[in-house]
């Protein structure tokens, strides 16, 4: 089960994801992220992964694509709340160095 919520806070859009992010759910997640970027054109997109129990390569691909699309509109993508299992996947793929990663959502919003 995947639960996705999107909300706006000032110039930032926040997408909160809960559950298992794998091939079966990427289409659903892709739509939410695309709509959020298209409708709000946020300066900052924060994706909160606090409730994510598992992410596979298609999920990672989605996040990479999200960063690229935000980059194109001169915005920024900040990730936050990576649980240990997800952090490990990011480390293994060196994506820790590809994304701006923050501990809490507040940190991600402040960008510090």
């Amino acid at each position, binding site marked *: 089960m995947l639960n996705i919520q999107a909300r706006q806070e000032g110039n930032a859009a926040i997408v909160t994801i809960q559950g298992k992010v794998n091939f079966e759910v990427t289409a659903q997640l892709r739509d939410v992220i695309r709509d959020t970027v298209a409708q709000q054109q946020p300066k900052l997109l924060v994706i909160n992964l606090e409730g994510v129990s598992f992410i596979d*390569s*298609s999920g990672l*691909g989605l996040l*990479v694509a999200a960063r690229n699309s935000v980059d194109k509109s001169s915005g920024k993508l900040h990730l936050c709340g990576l649980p240990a299992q997800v952090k490990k996947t990011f480390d293994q793929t060196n*994506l820790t160095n*590809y994304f701006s990663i923050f501990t809490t959502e507040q940190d991600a919003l402040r960008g510090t």
Partner: protein
Amino acid sequence: MSKGVVLVVDDEPPIRDILSFYLKRADYQVLVAENGLRGLEEMSKLQPDLIISDLRMPEMAGDDFCRQVKSDAATKDIYFMLVSALDGSMSKIGGLNIGADDMISKPFHAQEVMAKVDSAFRIIAMQKEIKRQNVILTEFQDRVNNEMELASRLQMGMLPVLPGVAPGIQYTHRYLPAEGIGGDIYAITPLPDGSTAMMIADVSGHGVTAALISSMVKTSFESQLRLSLDPLAWAVGMNQDLSRNTLAEQFATAFLAHLDPATGEMAYVVAGHPAPFKIPSGNPGAPGKPEQLSGMGFMLGIDAELSFTSQRTSFLVGDRLVLFTDGLEEVEREDRTYLGEEGLMTFCSDLPADAEQATMQLVNQVQTYNGPATFSDDVTLVVVDRVK
């Protein structure tokens, strides 16, 4: 052109005449028969779309007739209306239970029958359309299945031939795509200088797209081998190839290695892929503890500008290397405990010396762990034994 063919079966000529008159006036083609048996004879000449049959008739009554029509595969889809006096001989429900599609009670108004006939023909038209579309769909599905099977065989053909032999190594594999074809690929290639190149990769996603990209990965790997003996250079080149030629979300995790059998030295790059396990030879009959190779790095195909790092390790005669894709470790037991690399490594600590038996045992152990579910991701396992 008539709107359809209706068979009227009744032993009373006036009823046959009245129904025939109204049906013909409404542009239906009409067949008539005086009982079920005659009705079946008429049907053998021209199959009707709809039957209106009386219940009580000599020779073959309407209920028997209905059962016969509905039990024959060739006629069971004919819409059957049973006409019955509501005198206790057959309730409406009883008629529907023997397979009739509708009941008309006697005495009837011809207009009521005609309204029912028109409504029945709307259903018949719908059924015909569904059948027609089903035929198209089935044909399409058959074609897709055939093509998938062909593609699957083609993909299997891209894998090394077993039992695998290359300078300094012997190897075997298990390749289990989740959907007939998949995004996993591996290659082991002898190089002109007597060394050996190895690559295992997992393209994001499943199915046809992933399979197409996996063949691109293999081609890219092979073209890199002609340019250099350094896995770091292969990774950079393959990353550029994939970044340019795939869509945003498509990339591959990969492990690339170059083995020099003369020195036992192996240079390798871990590109977002689970690092393989090395099982040192240890003492005879008691292999050493499996250890995971170090190193991590970006997946191939995210961004052409990304850089990679290479590592070195020894791979000596008697050592074993277990290469795999994440489908083999990203499995869950029924209690939702996750196997993971640690769990898989535990399974690797007790493998038979024979590589073929070892791959079989390992896949079985993972399958049992994952059971009763089947693998939802592509699974590839390659067991490489270092030989003289």
